[in-house]
């Protein structure tokens, strides 16, 4: 057995190496955030600011017969009460969703999910606004709801979207990928076929900071300033321009510090639009901040896929084909945040990390009377679902064949020489070297020893499980030619300006929600031009201050804007080289770059630093012919492909046979995200994602009763994990750079959220092997595990 790596608990010392470039360094944003000096949307206070509260539907499906707002209007401090009917007069009752559907800003005709926005009150303070909601009298005619997604397309199902012309059923869209016939042919000849129904239940991103906005419309200048909890300030600004008809140059969207996004803050929510309308109507700044229950019941959920997975293989364990049929619940409005041409996001990567002969997926998406979505909840546009499916069914195959799941995976990996590898569903994996990653995870885990321990424990009636997941992610959308959000191409701008004293400012279109952009991007620029990260200011989250770009989600910041930052720095360096050649009186070709300075080849004593060059670029005296003053550049980076990070995760669980409680004892995560910029930040991202995975695998689910009441409306009902549910994470890494990315980096923001749920579920199912359990759905609460132990596992929906 190889040595088991003890989790290091005191790695803090070498976390601050103060690198001029890549390496461990403490986050530049942390002193502000840790000392309570962050500035979040709810911290914004403007003179004369009013407060907005939203009345929401108590019913999942009901016709609005009438709304009486007179008592609310007469309540103390109330400045305005606005209903859907009032918005409709301005043509603002409906807005487009990110998936080209429409969504009600305030309901006019019907409410279509519990928690839907019905009216809003603007008052002098938050309490008055909330109190006045109680005084609005809405008369509803309650309708039968569609809650069971499997019955949404039944002929007698109540029609949800009668607002759409000619719509006669609850069908949302169909989508398919791969080759149906070729796949059927391979299945027909296979020795072994395993079929499993796999549910990825509805979960919620549940960021600690809920969504909100402060809208400040200046009627004199005609300018709207909007502080809002958005992961994509530029895309939002353009959409507001389109929806509200305001000229785009008169809209400034500011995303201040954000307390977690996880995709929840990608969509435009009715509340933002209400705040804008309220500010225009009252002529005052208006704040809207949703409370915890509002966030959980009405904002973008994630997942909610019911998947039938089939895997075909030879008797000796060569995987031949994968086929799946998916029923997707999109809620009342299709608010999915995904590139427009990808209604199922990047679910097409469900073939995983394996070299197979054929694959096919058919998906049907439906409307139900539930909150709209689903968003990219740390899922890289549905890759979470895809990876969960394939990693779960590969394990069912291992079970069927009586083969070790690690061995089965190793046998089927795409080989390093096959990259770039085009999958059977058309995705071109840029680079990968899977076996070393897998072997490293197995080494850290002490895999063979663990299996031995398990055998001994089983003999004693103890329940121990070892679960493996190997994932390939696809992150960093675009390219712009086939990826856009409502027509906005997925490419990112970046600007870099070096000041006369050699300090710099880099302006980004992406927006951190906790990922550490202010540090990572300073390090990327530092690596290229040798200015220490401490001397580089990262400006982001303000559309008046930054170039256009599509925002932070789907792990795209480093793959797209990170590339932009590196390239813009190289552009600045190229100019610096010309100025340096004049300063040193040699030709450009005679200079070589040594981080932070240009020196004469063969005579390193003759050199000028980037700071000296910066002063010269702004100083007195002539510059070389054709060179303008200043030291700055701007670019827009359009990625040529996605990047494809991968990883091998191993989870060890123990289950109490008496109570069926699952304890995650160990978790080994080996990630390959290509070039590593700040390993400490990467580890932080991985730790967070793994914790998230424990939540989804073991406890999280947004459930509904049969009337459509949301049963997860508080954090006492919708559980998210704490440090007590997670082990000390054991992390490792391999490095396979992306060949097309300027610095070889791949995204890592969502890897752990994608990879950990199947590892944990696989471990639980493995532990339950003595009971003949081949599959059990999340969330694996003690009660559901106990059902599985008795052969009574049921899907959660």
């Amino acid at each position, binding site marked *: 057995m190889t040595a088991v790596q003890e989790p290091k608990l005191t790695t803090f010392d070498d976390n601050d190496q103060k690198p001029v470039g890549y390496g461990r360094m403490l986050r530049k944003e942390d002193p502000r955030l840790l000392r309570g000096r962050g500035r979040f949307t*709810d911290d914004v206070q403007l003179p004369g600011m009013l407060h907005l509260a939203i009345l929401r539907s108590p019913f999942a499906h009901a016709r609005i017969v009438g709304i009486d707002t007179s008592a609310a209007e007469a309540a103390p401090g109330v400045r305005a009460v606005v209903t859907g009917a009032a918005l409709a007069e301005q043509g603002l009752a409906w807005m487009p969703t990110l998936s080209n559907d429409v969504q009600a800003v305030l309901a006019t005709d019907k409410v279509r999910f519990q928690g839907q926005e019905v009216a809003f009150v603007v008052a002098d303070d*938050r*309490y008055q606004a*909330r*109190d006045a909601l*109680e005084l609005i009298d809405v008369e509803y005619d309650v309708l039968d709801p569609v809650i069971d997604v499997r019955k949404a397309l039944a002929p007698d199902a109540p029609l949800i979207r009668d607002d759409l012309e000619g719509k006669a059923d609850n069908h949302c869209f169909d989508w398919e990928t791969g080759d149906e016939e070729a796949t059927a042919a391979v299945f027909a000849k296979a020795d072994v076929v395993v079929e499993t129904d796999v549910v990825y239940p509805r979960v919620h991103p549940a960021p600690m900071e809920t969504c909100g906005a402060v809208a400040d419309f200046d009627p004199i200048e005609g300018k709207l300033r909007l502080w809002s909890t958005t992961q994509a300030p530029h895309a939002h600004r353009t959409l507001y321009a389109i929806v509200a008809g305001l000229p785009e140059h008169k809209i400034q969207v500011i995303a201040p510090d954000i307390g977690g996004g996880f995709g929840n803050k990608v969509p435009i929510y009715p509340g933002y639009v209400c705040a804008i309308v309220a500010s225009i109507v009252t002529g005052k700044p208006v704040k809207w*901040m949703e*409370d*915890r*229950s509002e966030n959980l019941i009405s904002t973008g959920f994630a997942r909610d896929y019911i998947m039938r997975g089939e895997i075909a293989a030879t008797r000796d364990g060569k995987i031949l084909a994968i086929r799946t049929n998916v029923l997707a619940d999109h809620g009342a409005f299709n608010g999915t945040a995904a590139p427009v041409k990808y209604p199922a996001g990047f679910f097409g990567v469900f073939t995983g990390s394996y070299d197979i002969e054929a694959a096919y997926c058919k998906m049907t998406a439906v409307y139900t009377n539930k909150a709209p979505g689903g968003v990219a909840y740390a899922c890289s546009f549905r890759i979470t679902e895809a990876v969960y499916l394939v990693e779960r069914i590969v394990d069912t195959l291992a079970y069927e064949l009586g083969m070790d799941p690690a061995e089965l995976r190793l046998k089927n990996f795409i080989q390093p020489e096959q990259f770039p590898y085009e999958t059977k569903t058309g995705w071109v994996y840029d680079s990968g070297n899977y076996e070393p990653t897998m072997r490293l995870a197995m080494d850290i885990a002490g895999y063979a020893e663990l299996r031995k321990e398990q055998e001994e424990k089983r003999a004693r009636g103890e329940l121990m499980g070892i679960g493996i997941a190997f994932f390939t992610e696809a992150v960093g959308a675009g390219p712009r030619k086939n990826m856009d959000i409502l027509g906005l191409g997925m490419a990112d701008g970046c600007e870099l300006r070096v000041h006369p004293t050699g300090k710099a400012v880099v302006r980004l279109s992406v927006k951190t929600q906790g990922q550490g952009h202010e540090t990572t991007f300073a390090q990327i620029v530092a690596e290229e031009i040798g200015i220490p990260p401490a001397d580089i200011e990262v400006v982001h989250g303000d559309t008046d201050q930054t170039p256009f770009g599509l925002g932070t989600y789907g792990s795209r910041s480093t793959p797209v804007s990170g590339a932009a930052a590196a390239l813009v720095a190289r552009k600045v360096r190229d100019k610096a080289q010309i100025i340096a050649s004049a300063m040193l009186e040699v030709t450009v070709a005679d200079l070589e770059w040594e981080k932070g300075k240009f020196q004469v080849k063969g005579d390193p004593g003759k050199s000028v630093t980037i700071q000296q060059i910066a002063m010269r670029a702004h100083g007195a005296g002539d510059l070389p012919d054709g060179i303008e003053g200043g030291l700055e550049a701007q670019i827009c980076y359009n990625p040529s492909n996605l990047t494809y990070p991968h990883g091998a995760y191993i989870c060890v669980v123990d289950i109490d046979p*008496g*109570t*069926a*409680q699952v304890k995650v004892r160990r978790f080994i995560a080996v990630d390959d995200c290509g070039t590593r910029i700040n390993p400490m930040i990467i580890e932080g991202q991985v730790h967070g994602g793994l914790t998230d995975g424990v939540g989804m695998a*073991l*406890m999280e689910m947004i*459930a509904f009763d049969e009337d459509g009441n949301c*049963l997860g409306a*508080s954090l*006492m*009902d919708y*559980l998210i*994990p*704490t440090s*007590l*549910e997670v082990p000390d994470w054991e992390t490792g890494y391999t490095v396979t750079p992306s060949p097309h990315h300027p610095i070889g980096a791949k995204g890592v923001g969502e890897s752990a959220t994608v990879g950990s749920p199947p590892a944990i579920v696989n471990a639980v199912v493995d532990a339950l092997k003595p009971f003949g359990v081949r599959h059990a759905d999340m969330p694996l*609460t*003690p*009660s559901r595990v*106990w*059902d599985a132990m008795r052969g009574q596992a049921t899907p959660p929906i």
Partner: protein
Amino acid sequence: MQVPAPFEYERATTVDHAIGLLERLGSSARLVAGGHSLLPMMKLRLANFEYLIDINPLHEELGYIKTSSDEVRIGALTRHRELLESDALAAAFPIFRDAERVIADPIVRNRGTLGGSLCQADPSEDLSAVCTTLDASCVIRGPGGAERVVSMEDFHVGPYETAVGDDEMLTEIRIPLRPGGGSAYEKVERRAGDWAVVSAGAAVWLAADGTIDDARVGLAAAGPNTTGIPEISAALTGHAPAEELYEQAGAIAARSCDPATDQRGSAEYKRHLANELTRRTLRRAVERARS
């Protein structure tokens, strides 16, 4: 931020002051102790009271754990944290420390009180199960200093309902101290800090010859109330502790509880837990009684 409906607020300076206010304001008023049950309900507007009477200033007076030779008295304002940290209490009734380790989280435990827990009368409340297990009685004070003492059985009238009248207040819990005792508590939760799926407490008192002189089991989250199970006491008393006996007790617990299926688990599973946890706690209580 979830905001409650408007209410008026007053700090009580003495127990009689608090009771005087209750007397005057009637059912439109509520006492607030730790506030960890009351305030969440008010923020969600599931409960709206016109007046809150803050009894935290009475902590000096009603925050105590007093042990005598035959009784332990605990003031109603004693906080979870004080119950957790009291060595004297852990020595007399280890069940308290067992339970407090799994109740909520440090933030809640710093403020939440024994009195509030019992008066909330949530069927999932752990301390109610503990007090039931220990055969505690509750001291209720009313107008004019009138005091009455009721058993846990009589204290809990139904879910979220107690014997405490609108103008009364719980001031103290009394637990009889008997020789040869041992106790234990176990809870199954979906996550640290979550309410119980089911929890069970057990207390046994062994006679000099090692047989069971008395045994009690209390369950939480296993029915509309956290009542005790007399049938178990009857089945165990007079017998020597043994695995078969615990199994029998577990079966009685499963049979006599009345759990409901909800997000925390199926009724069937909860019955199973009532059985499993009854056995486990009895086993541990006996071990402790012996040592």
